[in-house]
């Protein structure tokens, strides 16, 4: 037994009290979906966790109508102070049920429990705390006095950080006074549904947040619904482009958080130990399922061999396996579909002449897994240097001068994030100035904070999430004076509601009261 062998240390699943099936959360209650229910599985074992309702177009319409009613009758009239108090309540409840949420997230998503426990869920609470305080201070959001909420926000989120993306979307929307219909990803609906229970515990007025589950067509129907005033989407650039086309000519505002192919630039004077850890964190955090992942390592030629050797050594110590094991570094790939995509692109890398090296780790029999992999000898024209792989695969390229590093880093239609590793502060700032990316990490990587705006340049999307900028994305200036201002506020959600459809049919409502188990506290 080497020093790297650990006895299993699984986090207990006993903290969870999951149901066999989950409905849609509309107007404060769980209701049946009218589409064909689907199962959500653990990507680590392929075992079913629960059956999930599938929202069809009628369900989407019901959810939007509920959000509209809640906006008109309750949320838009409520004081900022009270909206903030609800958000503070939610933040506290997330903290109280943090371990339960972390276990559920790792179970459903496949990410290591140490990440869901130490990164995802604490950030979720932080996000609600941060925006809670904004709710009664909107005059300082940067849009002048008395800015207006937009109305109903349609929010579609990805599977890589299911609960964290929910928080990024819901917290600023509610603080600004909007109501929400949110659709989690098809493969990771679980924590959003537990979050719905938290909303019940917080006694958030019905309809202020509606959570509808389903696949891509549910999301498309939601974005297309005419009762929606704001679209916030995180996901692929292809879908983001389709959304931008779909809402062209409408009054819907959009925030799009799309793909990336971030350069992580390592200069020869970088603090090498930290840089190695930073590279590993940059691309192998969350199995590389990160839109801002440092998937292109640009290393100065003189230290290329040393960096690659040390990376291989370090990667050989990573433990891949049970996401619920507290010692696990690399969890499961989220779905078979994603695993196939990673394998296919990785094979393209080999075909295009790059050299592939994968960490020697035991792959469990069931579930979806991909060993941490490095490609060396990658050409800038290669698909693995240009396309988002969204998996634990690092492409290594070299440069000689800072100018070459900058040119290579910017040579992509994406522009979400980048990393710089050097001991020289002046060089950090000069390089940061010239990188065309929305988030630059200097001597660190993959840091997130509710106070720090996050979002892309170019085809990585538009709008920001986090900070004052993220709040402004859910507000419009007060309707005074200038034409541009008047136009953006001319279609206040308040007048649009007359056409909002009433729920078409009364359906059986399975009142799913949140069960508060002692073990949760």
């Amino acid at each position: 037994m080497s020093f790297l062998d650990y006895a299993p240390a699984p986090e207990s699943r006993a903290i969870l009290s999951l149901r066999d099936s989950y409905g849609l959360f509309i107007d404060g209650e769980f209701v049946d979906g009218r589409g064909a229910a689907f199962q959500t599985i653990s990507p680590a074992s392929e075992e079913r966790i629960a059956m999930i309702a599938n929202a069809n177009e009628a369900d989407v319409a019901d959810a939007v109508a509920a959000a509209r009613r809640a906006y008109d009758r309750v949320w838009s009239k409520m004081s900022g102070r009270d909206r903030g108090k609800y958000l503070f309540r939610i933040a506290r409840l997330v903290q109280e049920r943090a371990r339960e949420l972390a276990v559920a997230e790792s179970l459903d998503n496949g990410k290591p429990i140490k990440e869901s426990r130490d990164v995802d869920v604490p950030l979720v609470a932080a996000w609600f705390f941060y925006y809670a305080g904004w709710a009664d201070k909107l005059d300082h959001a940067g849009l002048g006095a008395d800015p207006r909420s937009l109305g109903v926000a349609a929010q579609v989120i990805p599977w890589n950080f299911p609960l964290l993306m929910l928080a990024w979307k819901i917290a600023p929307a509610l603080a600004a006074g909007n109501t929400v219909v949110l659709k989690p990803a098809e493969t990771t609906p679980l924590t959003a549904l537990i979050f719905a229970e938290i909303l019940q515990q917080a006694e958030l007025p019905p309809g202020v947040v509606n959570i509808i589950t389903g696949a891509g067509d549910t999301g498309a129907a939601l974005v297309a619904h005419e009762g929606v005033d704001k679209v916030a989407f995180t996901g692929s650039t292809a879908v983001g482009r389709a959304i931008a086309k779909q809402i062209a000519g409408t009054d819907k505002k959009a925030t799009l958080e799309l793909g990336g192919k971030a350069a992580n630039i390592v200069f020869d004077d970088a603090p090498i130990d930290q840089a190695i850890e930073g590279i590993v964190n940059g691309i192998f955090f969350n199995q590389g399922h990160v839109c801002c992942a440092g998937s292109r390592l640009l290393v100065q030629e003189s230290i290329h061999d040393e960096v690659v050797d040390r990376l291989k050594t370090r990667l050989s110590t990573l433990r891949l396996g049970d996401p619920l094991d507290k010692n696990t570094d690399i969890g499961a790939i989220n779905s078979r579909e994603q695993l196939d995509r990673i394998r296919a692109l990785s094979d393209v890398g080999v075909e295009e002449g790059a050299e592939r090296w994968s960490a020697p780790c035991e792959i469990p029999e069931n579930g979806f897994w991909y060993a941490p992999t490095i490609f060396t000898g990658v050409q800038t024209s290669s698909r693995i240097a240009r396309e988002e792989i969204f998996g634990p695969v690092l492409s290594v390229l070299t440069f000689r001068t800072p100018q070459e590093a900058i040119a290579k880093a910017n040579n992509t239609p994406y522009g979400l994030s980048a990393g710089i590793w050097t001991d020289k502060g002046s060089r950090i700032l000069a390089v940061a100035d010239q990188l065309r990316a929305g988030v630059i990490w200097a001597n660190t990587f993959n840091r997130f904070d509710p106070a720090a705006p996050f979002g892309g340049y170019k085809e990585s999307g538009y709008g920001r999430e986090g900070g004052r900028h993220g709040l402004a994305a859910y507000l419009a200036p007060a309707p005074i004076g200038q034409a541009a201002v008047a136009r953006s506020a001319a279609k206040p959600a308040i007048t649009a509601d007359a056409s909002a459809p009433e729920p078409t049919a009364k359906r059986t409502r399975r009142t799913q009261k949140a069960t508060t188990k002692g073990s949760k506290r």
Partner: protein
Amino acid sequence: MTRLAVPKTYKLYIGGKFPRSESGRTYEVSAPDGRFLANAALASRKDARDAVVAARAAVSGWAGATAYNRGQVLYRIAELLEGRRAQFVSEIEETEGVSRAVAAAQVDEAIDRWVWYAGWADKFAQVAGNANPVAGPYFNLSVPEPTGVVAIVAPQDSSLLGLVSAVAPALVAGNPVVVVASERFPLSAISLAEVLATSDVPGGVVNVLTGSPAEIAPWLASHADVNAIDLVGAGALDWIALEIDAADTLKRVLRPENGPDAAAPALGRIQAFTETKTVWHTKSLR
């Protein structure tokens, strides 16, 4: 004896030079009473692409200039425009068929708008950006940066003021622009280009096309090297189709505005063509 006047040839303004349209095409510009005024260049798709190339080449210099410098250059435009005030007043009087007083008011407002935007150049980042108190040992700053090449369909019902109102804010943050002038009133746009060419604005930072917005705008909307498009003057075009074209490369889009208040001075017009960059820098005593 009256002196025989020397009329001006109105050409395009691309990359700091005044070329004719590569297509060789022109179109007749007349006064409201039907009197012939000039032949303006009828820009082609190729001219639009050349203009984008010139604008792209100007990005690093203009975006890389200090904010103080950009402010000075924009103020210099106001100075030179003031010096040529009479010329613009007469030109607008003739082309738009308005009274001298109305034409003068337009020119004065255009000059003042350059001054207003010039003053923003070294200030908007202080209003639009901020330090972020993140929960960790990091220096964390968000600053607005220029989006890149901005294409503009200028307001169509004014010679000078609409053009200036749309172009100036895009320049403030450091974006080079390609602007399609008013189809009916293109002459002052080219006269303004003469001002720009002599007022320290680097070549390629402003490129002026005259001709048919309906013909040129689609090429700009779909051009992969254009980062943003301001459709302020595209209200009479199929601007939804332009917005759909722009979505292919996820361009930032500003919608059409109509009336005399189109492109009214606003900080928001500067910010519309900026990207917020957040830089995280570690703090350590070691």
